């Protein structure tokens, strides 16, 4: 079966999830707090994964995740149903994460720190993982992503993992499309360098 053909069970699963989201949104709009709990149970881990990868810090990711669900509660009436609810939720999560990170010192260090400085920091990362072949452990790659310079990390996560376009990233981060592309290439190169240096022992 071709990879882009959705199996009937998978299609049914996706449809059920959308219907479930619609029901929860209606309950939220009526002010039912229990609906937010349901929403958190369904999407909490997804939002946390995005927050953790964008921030590269567990505690900050926890704060962001909580803030996302509080904002969903507050702003649910802004969701008009023009897109899938999960798309809107991820967009809120990315906005909250980036806004939260703008308040952190590291964000501004990534603007003012030189490339050389950032790359030296990256080269000094010490890890205990025993990686002996191409098949990186998932936690291994996440660990390297977390250590990327802030701007490069955000662009890489949004583009490579979340599937955003560079135009969307540039708008969100208030940077040029070209900068988004160059940060992405920089992230890929830095990841390649650090992973290979680790493989070389």
């Amino acid at each position, binding site marked *: 079966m071709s990879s882009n053909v959705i199996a009937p069970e998978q299609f049914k699963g996706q449809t059920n999830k959308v219907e479930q989201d619609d029901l929860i949104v209606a309950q939220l*709009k009526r*002010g039912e*707090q229990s609906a*937010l*709990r349901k929403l*958190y149970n369904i999407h*909490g*881990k*997804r939002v*946390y*994964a995005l927050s*953790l*990868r964008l921030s590269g810090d*567990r505690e900050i*990711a*926890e704060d962001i*995740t*909580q803030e996302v*669900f*509080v904002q969903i*509660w*507050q*702003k*649910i*009436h*802004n969701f008009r149903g023009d897109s899938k609810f999960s798309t809107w939720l991820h967009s809120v999560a990315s906005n909250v994460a980036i*806004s939260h990170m*703008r*308040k952190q010192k590291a964000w*501004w260090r990534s*603007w*003012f720190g030189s490339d050389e400085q950032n790359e030296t920091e990256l080269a000094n990362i010490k890890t205990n993982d025993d990686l*002996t*072949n*191409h098949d*990186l452990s*998932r936690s291994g*790659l*996440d660990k390297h*992503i977390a250590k990327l310079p802030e701007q490069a990390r955000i662009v*890489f996560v949004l583009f*490579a*993992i979340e599937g955003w376009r560079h135009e969307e990233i540039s708008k969100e981060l*208030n940077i040029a499309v070209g900068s988004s592309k160059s940060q992405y290439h920089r992230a*890929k*190169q830095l*990841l*390649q360098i650090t*992973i*290979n240096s680790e*493989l*070389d*022992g």
Partner: protein
Amino acid sequence: MSINNIEEKDVLTQAQELPKELTPERDLWAGIEQAIAKTPQQNGYETSISWQQFGKIAAAFAPIALVLGIWLSTSNEASRNSNWTNPLIASYEIQKKQLLQNVNLEHPIVNNWQSSMKELELAEKALIKALKNQPEDPALMKMLNQVYQSQISLIQKAYKPQLQTYHQI
């Protein structure tokens, strides 16, 4: 180099295969529950009423907007900033302007200071934009203050001898 070296495309493939869900180490629900108990929902109905009234309000303010538009189009950006942004921004803009007025811009002692200034101005714009969404956020205000101080220091560093002479006069 090891024979195990990975290529850039392998990095992308690995990234796309990362799990979409991760479990936080602590329960985050309790904090959310506490926060929403104190947080009212923004009412969509009130918002739509406001939009209905918006037309009338806009019509009432149209003459003022027209005068304002003419004034904005004839005044320069610096004067607009000093009138429309908060006192912190205005005071630094004046300080920056005064410093630059008293130096010969063609003779800096630090090369490429303008490119550093551009980065700082980019940061300044991003912070002002963020402050529009979160007015008077103390962390943002503090960072904006630091960005302005860095701008002033950069000018002072680039034109140190000239500015020393100016202050002696």
